[in-house]
């Protein structure tokens, strides 16, 4: 089962390598990884998705929490949460599957190629890729999952 872990870490050089290194060091698998500064410039928020049973994910969150640069960790998949991913796809103009997209999906086009953007859950994007396979997209770029809890809980140091 896919799990989504979100964490806040000090926005410092080396912090990201500690998080990523932990995964290889302890033999955990990272499926997707997204990291960006937050509105508080001293903090970065990192979201990762991983496969693993409950016990493995519990170990992962505990080990992440032990890293000195990690301020807060949460396993979003423990309760209801929203997961979204952005995907960009490039088609040759002559094989663009018009029926699969709306105009608002198109982010650039010229005489040769059309780029579209799609936002959805990872599994929706997986399904879309299968659906458009016949149109031979020439490039597919995925951002990796972002996550946010559905309830009033927030991942914040002000709580």
């Amino acid at each position: 089962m896919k799990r989504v872990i979100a964490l806040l870490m000090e926005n410092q050089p080396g912090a990201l390598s500690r998080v990523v290194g932990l995964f290889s060091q302890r033999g955990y698998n990272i499926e997707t990884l997204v990291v960006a500064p937050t509105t508080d410039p001293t903090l970065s928020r990192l979201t990762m998705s991983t496969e693993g049973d409950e016990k493995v994910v519990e170990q992962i969150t505990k080990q992440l929490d032990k890293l000195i640069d990690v301020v807060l960790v949460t396993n979003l998949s423990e309760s209801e949460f929203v997961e979204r991913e952005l995907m960009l796809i490039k088609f040759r103009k002559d094989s663009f599957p018009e029926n699969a997209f709306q105009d608002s999906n198109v982010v650039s086009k010229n005489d040769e190629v059309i780029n579209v953007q799609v936002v959805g859950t990872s599994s929706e994007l997986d399904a879309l890729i299968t659906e458009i396979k016949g149109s031979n997209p020439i490039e597919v770029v995925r951002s990796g999952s972002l996550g946010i809890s559905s309830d009033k809980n927030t991942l914040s140091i002000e709580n």
Partner: protein
Amino acid sequence: MLNLQKFGVTFKRNLMDKSNKSGAEALIHSLHLEGVEFMFGYPGGAALHIYDAIFNQNYVDHILVRHEQGAVHAADGYARATGKPGVALVTSGPGATNAITGLATAYMDSTPIVVISGQVKSNLIGTDSFQETDMIGISRPIVKHSFLVQRAEDIPEIVKKAFHIATTGRPGPVVIDVPKDLTDPEYKFEFHYPKEINMRSYNPPTEGDTSRIKEAVDLIETAKRPVIYSGGGVIQNDASDELIELAKLLNFPVTNTLMGLGAFPGSDPQFMGMLGMHGTYQANMAMHNADLIIAIGARFDDRITNDPKQFSLGAKKIHIDVDPASVSKIIHADIPIVGSAKECLSALLLELNSRNLKLNESDISEWNKQISTWRDAHGLNHSLLELGPQNGKILPQQVVQSLYKETNGEAFITSDVGQHQMFAAQYYHFDKPRQWINSGGLGTMGFGLPSAMGVQLAFPESTVACVTGEGSIQMCIQELSTCLQYGLPIKIINLNNAALGMVRQWQDMQYGGRHSSSTYENSLPDFIALAESYGHVGIKVTKFEDLEAAMKECVSLKDRLVFLDVDVDPNEHVYPMLEAGNAMDHMWLGKEEKTWK
């Protein structure tokens, strides 16, 4: 004891009292403010500004080792013996890489050390410059934390943080990597040392959850076959007194891990000995048959549990540990208690003492009788000296017993890795915490001698013996020179079986006796001549009849390092030994004798 002055080193007290300091001066002064007495190190280009600052003060003594691995092990030994953080200083590049084994050793055994590495100048980082290596990168998986200094002014705060992180929670090594330009004597700044440090991302737990403590006591009251299993965490956290109080109050049998020896008195009848891979028969049997295991500052590692799926299936587990990630990592904890051993044990004792405690006393008494029966059947023989020579040879265990006798069981014992380490752990009854110093987690050959230097410097009047083998001692043998320079009268007890004994034991047991690369084909040095060439005393023992007199002489030479080289029976194996992939009751008790059919 310490011959710093003898060798013409005169210290000047200048610069250090002024408030404006260079990065190098700030670094040394910060160490002084952290209470550092000794640091172990080896100079080199990137660290020379720091070495100049060391020369210009006399607060912190620098011990020049012969290899950076020795520096880190010495700092580690100092930390383990004193409970205070140990400090090592190395240069960039090879100095830093040589420190890696020492860092990994400290990391696996959770010892508080701070390793300061020189780094190339900031503007050269990333250019493959001379003696450049990415110390933060290569040390990352084996440190609790690390700092790359980016401004000289940050040095005091970083030192403060480093010591705070190294010594609190589950202790561990911290690296401070300092680019050379940030220690430049020409650049000075106003020195401020922070009084305290608050880190939003680091708040190690101390007190255990009160409701869990109550649940633990409820469970204790139901126990009929309990075992207290304690590890290095009790020693690190100075919780030995509380552990003893708990065991005495409950009359529960106690076993210690290799790292936990000394937390409970080794000569106490309630003590079952070490458990695990080479644990005693009674300790392993008790663990396997228990209905309650109280784990304190121990982490159920693979050398304890054998196959975790078959581990003590009938026992409930109370697990007290300061590291939340250690709880339920290998073995599910029925009652997890996250907090420091000392705080949690105190809370447990308070709860026990506040109740009208109803223990299953008759069951526990039966259980203790059962353990005595196991001990009588297959326990270790602690009177091997009385047996005299075996097949004309000295048993390695007899050497440890002789050492125990001559030192009244009061010496600090450091060790390397292999059969000698297990014999020392099994046969020297450690009655006090911090008396037994060995590389349990990483299993680092070469740890024994340099760690003994750290212990001897901290306790100049105490007997410090390094129980080693002819394999391990050669891995850091160069430190014999350091021992001469600083007059460290370590007793090296070399159990010489002319083979890599533990490797050979495994080859005997699992590889049909094919001794692949575990012997030296008559290439061993004359250890007596070697010790003498370093200015020390060497004593050779080949006959059992000479053993005790030689040991007496060795221990009585208070001011000299003595290398006692004892030829021991090369065919001896360490037993008991857990049979891999099974439960803890599957033990080899001898070459032909085992506990299962």
